């Protein structure tokens, strides 16, 4: 397996307006890895995840996702990438089930996965038929996670996934991440919930000023899983 074959950035620079939110970030993530990005607000974590999802282009450097060059075609891998940002991408007036069915159909998936995903996130029964606008913040977050579970993307990009979830929801999320990695999916998450996120991650990277600074040991994997050349020391 090639190093960084799930997500690969080399000196990637991305602008938000005229501000370089990514200022030469370098990162390699292998398939099946769970990688935690930490760092202060504004460090570039969200931008890195959006670049990885192909939602934001880079003005210089290299970006590869699942073997595709995103500098040439940002849309190439979107169907295989699951992105959970601060918004869950839910339609307020649709029911939980309708949201899942649309998301799964949109990527050409099998809607048979919707029922098990709802059950996995504790959204079956009355909640499955509820309009999203009537859900609590935590239930919305679970719905967004259920979409990811139903889609089963090859690369999960999660931005503060624990936010808004209660203890049970956080446990479900951690279980979901472990299950995804167990079947070969790659997970990159940005989180300030270090204790929880570190426990599920194979390795942890610190970001600051738009670059990936250093690796830190984690409970699940430790530094031994860091691929050679994966870390850019600014």
């Amino acid at each position, binding site marked *: 397996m090639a190093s960084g074959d799930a997500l690969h950035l080399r000196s990637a620079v991305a602008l938000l307006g005229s501000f370089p939110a990514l200022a030469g970030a370098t990162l390699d993530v292998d398939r099946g890895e769970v990688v935690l990005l930490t760092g202060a607000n504004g460090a570039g974590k969200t931008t890195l995840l959006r670049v990885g999802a192909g939602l934001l282009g880079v003005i210089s450097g290299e970006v590869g996702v699942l073997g595709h060059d995103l500098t040439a075609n940002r849309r190439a891998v979107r169907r295989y990438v699951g992105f959970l940002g601060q918004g869950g991408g839910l339609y307020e007036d649709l029911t939980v089930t309708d949201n899942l069915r649309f998301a799964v159909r*949109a990527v050409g998936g099998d809607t048979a996965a919707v029922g098990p995903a709802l059950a996995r996130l504790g959204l079956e029964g009355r909640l499955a038929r509820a309009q999203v606008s009537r859900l609590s913040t935590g239930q919305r977050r679970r719905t967004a996670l259920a979409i990811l579970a139903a889609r089963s993307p090859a690369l999960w990009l999660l931005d503060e996934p624990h936010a808004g979830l209660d203890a049970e929801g956080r446990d479900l999320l951690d279980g979901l991440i472990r299950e995804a990695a167990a079947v070969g999916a790659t997970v990159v998450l940005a989180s300030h919930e270090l204790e929880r996120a570190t426990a599920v991650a194979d390795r942890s990277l610190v970001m600051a000023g738009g670059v990936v600074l250093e690796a830190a040991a984690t409970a699940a994997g430790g530094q031994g899983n860091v691929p050679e050349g994966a870390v850019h020391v600014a």
Partner: protein
Amino acid sequence: MWRDAALVAGKDLRIEWRSRVATNQVAPFALLVLILFAFALDDNPGVLTQAAAGLYWVAVLFSGLLAVQRSSAIEAADGARDHLRLSGLDPAGIFLGKAGAVAAQLLALEVLLAAGIVILYNASIGGVVLVVLTNILATAGLAAAGTLYGSLAAGLKVRETLLPLLLLPVAAPLLLAATEAWQAALGSHPGDGTEWVNLLAVFAIIYLTFGVLAFGSLLEES
């Protein structure tokens, strides 16, 4: 592309069905516009009948603006636009689906407004085929232009006020041609409306083609 268009149109129409915005807000607004015109021109019923075609299409245009803004706002909430982009759906399919959903709502509204001008303005529709063709083509053009400009304005903070400024000038040729065609249909010579219908067909094809080609870039940049 067509599968993606059907999926997106079905989603947007389901959202409208559940939210009831079209039936509880847009349709009453359109009827209110017709009624206000009737009050304003009450002193001279003959003028009201003569101006029925123009007033009808002005009411359709105002209601169309609301439908387009609503269609655009659906994708602006909760990061839905990002997820639509991530779905990998064909941008041309997304455009046709969203325009199709707007067009379906507008056509239903136009039937209601047509009944309104018959009752309120004492107008009689002579050329039914001409009216049906005019409405289908004008609605296709309006929905296509509206969806395109709605996407263009979507990423801007001033989108609610910017959209009418962008869309109304582009919709003016449609308004003119549709009004002339309706004028012919309401009069005794429906055949006079043929050239206006042809013009509407040209506009509809131009707006739809441009939308299919340009929507992907707009979606990426908005």
